[in-house]
């Protein structure tokens, strides 16, 4: 199992991620929770959140909804655990990447290191799969979350595609 993280560290990283989203103009968030993102979801579910958060039953449905939001002029972010990547591959490759609009995905990276057994295979393969389907990605530095998020935000806009900011440390 991953090492326990202090609540303060989790909250600090979560705040940095959500503050980036707010400052960059994101309007909506959808997705499926992960325990590595519980601080982020806590902020999104707070009554004073400036992003409208919609829970989705499954990750690919979240990607579809976020795509509709983007086509309609909103600025959505989609959050998920990397276990949801498999469900999403067709939504990415035949919709969000193909229709040419910017979309940011924040994805936790389970199974990168010692972790529960169900995360091992996808955790090992994660970045290789992203590269294989031409999804630009960056891993978030826990001491500077805004940097990778800003790179992904810029890449999504520049190339009118989906970019993935990977969260390896609970936030």
């Amino acid at each position, binding site marked *: 199992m991953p090492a326990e993280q202090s609540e303060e560290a989790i909250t600090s990283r979560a705040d940095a991620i959500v503050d980036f989203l707010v400052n960059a103009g994101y309007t*909506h968030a959808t997705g499926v929770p992960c325990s590595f993102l519980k601080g982020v979801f806590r902020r999104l579910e707070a009554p004073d959140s400036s992003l409208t958060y*919609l829970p*989705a*039953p*499954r990750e*690919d*449905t*979240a*990607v*579809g*909804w*976020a*795509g*509709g*939001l*983007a*086509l*309609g*002029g*909103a*600025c*959505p972010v989609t959050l998920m655990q990397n276990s949801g990547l498999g469900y999403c591959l*067709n*939504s990415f*490759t*035949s*919709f969000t*990447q*193909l*229709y*040419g*609009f*910017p979309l940011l995905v924040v994805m936790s990276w389970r199974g990168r290191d010692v972790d529960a057994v169900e995360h091992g295979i996808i955790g090992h393969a994660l970045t290789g799969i992203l590269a294989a389907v*031409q999804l630009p990605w960056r891993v978030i530095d826990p001491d500077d979350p805004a940097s990778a998020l800003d790179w992904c935000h810029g890449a999504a*806009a*520049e*190339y*009118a*595609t989906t970019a993935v900011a990977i969260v390896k440390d609970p936030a």
Partner: protein
Amino acid sequence: MTNASPTTLTPATVMATITSRFPDALVVSTCGYISRQLFAVEDRPSHIYLVGSMGMAAPVGGGLAMASGRRVLIFDGDGSFAMNLGALPMIASHGRGVVHVVLDNGCHDSTGGQKMLPLDPAALARAAGYASTCLVRTEADLALANGAATPLLVHAKVARQDHPVPPRVPYQPGELTLRLADFLNLKRQPSNRST
């Protein structure tokens, strides 16, 4: 639902009737024959034809309605509807303005007519919390799809696609995105760089 009562209602008639009833609506169509048929019935800059992502027309339409605040017509198939029942509670909670039309010919027509599991889209939509549903078997029944209470699910029992099937949509997907952005006067224009 079964195919026990054959219908003469065609997908084209359903599309023509509903799109002309809601001329200001944005429209999302599912992949395969349904997008091709919609393009042949009528093409507008407010139309997004999905060519892949089977099952995604419903959530895409829901997100589009939420962002734009406009009425959105979703032309789904019975197969693509069944593929993503998880979209139903999202549309029920956040899909104000959505008219979700399920064109039910009882089979996977675009891939050769393979059989479907039976299901009742209107009952599923009601259980998920849609504001209204209706069952349509004839052209006259289409009057029920008035959009008074949304999200509305229209379960349209239709005949299989007429052959020859209309040609594929000639626009590139990215062109459809830019065309819709122009139509909506979006300030945040998507980049013109294609993938």
